[in-house]
């Protein structure tokens, strides 16, 4: 039998990253993500990896991208204020197609806000925080165990699609300690980027082969010579003003996510088979919803939960199907209504939409959800 361990969400994220093969961490510590930096400072050298504390969040994001360009899986972690600073380089990684994992343990904002209080206010920033049309993948864990397993998934998606992936944690799970059953090696899939066989066979660095939307990726030192730039670039990596190339490049970046939704999308459905009320929630909020559903069902109220695990891309098609079967969808999140906008976009008039949001730095309680569900 595998042993149960007491672990904190942030610690589990570190261990998940290491299990995924991450061997480089650059960061600038910030509450409530600081334990990820602390953990990496201890653990990275133990597994032959590198930890570096940079001068700020901008540089740490750049360092993580640089390490990945050199062929090492890399990660940086932060919270709201640092997430804002990392947006510029996040966009750079989107366009240069350099995979890495950016962890954001959300705290109450805006600005430095309430450093030690939970929030889910960065959901839209995770989608549109960096400028221009770009691909976005963001995953949200609800348990400490998922801080481990989904962190591995973040790396796998980053490597597979050559794109930055955002691990959108929140203070509730980041600072929570609970029982964790760590999977053993071999029990989870590890994906590595495709590297061209040899420099001679590589061809232009950003050319896609065999109908794939994702170019192979040679690490620095591999022998293949190419340019890396945040300007729109041709297949050889050098800047171009070609409108045709610009159009094709931006559309391909978005298409490599949009055309692989079946592979990327993840969500969990709980007690929805006979449900009249669907609670739409994610991350730490799902824990409140679980207890609320137990209480509601004990009173004979048929409630269930739809929990997107990938917030971006959003599993809208499935939510739309569910919204045809229930009387109402209650969106619960720790912000002023961000995933609510997605819900309204896909549900339209299929059913009633209610909302419970909190921005005071406290956690939505099961009682508050129960009361909202019962509202006529």
């Amino acid at each position, binding site marked *: 039998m595998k042993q149960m361990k007491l672990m904190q969400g942030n610690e589990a994220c570190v261990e998940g990253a290491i299990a995924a093969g991450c061997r480089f961490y650059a960061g600038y510590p910030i509450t409530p993500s600081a334990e990820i930096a602390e953990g990496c400072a201890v653990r990275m050298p133990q597994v032959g990896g590198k930890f570096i504390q940079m001068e700020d969040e901008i540089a740490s994001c750049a360092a993580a991208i640089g390490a990945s360009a050199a062929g090492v899986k890399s990660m940086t972690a932060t919270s709201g204020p640092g997430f804002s600073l990392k947006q510029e380089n996040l966009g750079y990684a989107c366009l240069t197609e350099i995979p890495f994992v950016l962890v954001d343990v959300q705290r109450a904002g805006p600005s430095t806000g309430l450093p*030690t209080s939970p929030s889910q206010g960065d959901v839209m920033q995770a989608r549109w925080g960096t400028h221009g049309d770009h691909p976005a993948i963001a995953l949200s864990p609800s348990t400490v165990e998922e801080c481990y397993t989904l962190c591995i998934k973040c790396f796998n998606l980053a490597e597979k699609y050559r794109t930055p992936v955002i691990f959108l944690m929140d203070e509730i799970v980041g*600072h*929570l*300690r*609970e*029982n964790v059953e760590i999977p053993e090696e071999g029990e989870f899939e590890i994906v590595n980027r495709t590297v061209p066989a040899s420099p001679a066979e590589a061809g232009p660095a950003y050319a896609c082969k065999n109908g794939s939307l994702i170019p192979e990726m040679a690490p620095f030192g591999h022998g293949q010579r190419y340019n890396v730039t945040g300007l729109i670039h041709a297949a050889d990596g050098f800047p171009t003003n070609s409108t045709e190339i610009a159009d094709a490049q931006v559309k391909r970046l978005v298409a490599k996510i949009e055309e692989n939704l079946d592979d990327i999308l993840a969500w969990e459905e709980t007690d929805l088979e006979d449900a009249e009320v669907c609670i739409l929630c994610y991350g*730490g909020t799902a*824990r409140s919803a679980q*207890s609320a559903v137990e209480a509601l069902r004990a009173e004979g109220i048929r409630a269930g939960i739809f929990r997107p695990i990938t917030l971006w891309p959003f599993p809208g098609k499935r939510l739309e199907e569910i919204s045809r079967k229930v009387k109402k969808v209650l969106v619960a999140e720790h912000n002023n209504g961000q995933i609510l906008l997605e819900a309204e976009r896909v549900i339209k008039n299929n059913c009633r939409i209610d909302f419970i949001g909190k921005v005071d730095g406290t956690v939505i309680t099961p009682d508050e959800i129960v009361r909202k569900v019962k509202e006529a």
Partner: protein
Amino acid sequence: MSKMEIRLAGTGGQGLITGTIILAEAGIFENKFVAQSQSYGPEARGGMCKGEVIISDEKIGFTKVTKPTFVMALSQPSFGKYCRDLDEDCFVLVDESIVIPEDWSHKNFLSLPILATAREKVGKMQTVNIVSVGAINKILNFSSEENIKKAVLMHVPKGTEELNLKALEEGARLVK
């Protein structure tokens, strides 16, 4: 025991969050489900601080304490904030330095010299959280002596093991 919801409140720097981590660790050794969390301000020490742990036979949904079954307060402000509107069956433990207002009474209530024990008997104020853990486990009796010792040793700095085991013992001795 099916579900215990424990809240330890006091001043930042007293180590109460570590106290709840130790209780959670012991809970896991006793094959329970646990959820430990905390709330504190941006100050490094001196602010109001609260650690919480739920220890349950069943999987835990909501991870925060809503109906405490045990509350300990080690400072006057934390007593004022967390020792009101409690269920009758909730057990309240306070340090003897806390002034109990005349309008306050509670059925399951104990006032113990926790701070004084750490300072004088153990000889180090920093062990106040371990003295507390000793007293709490004696009252709640959810962990074997062996497991609570093991949990303490996992979360104290190297070189302080003996001191902290003494603190644990002195804490338990406070509860008759």
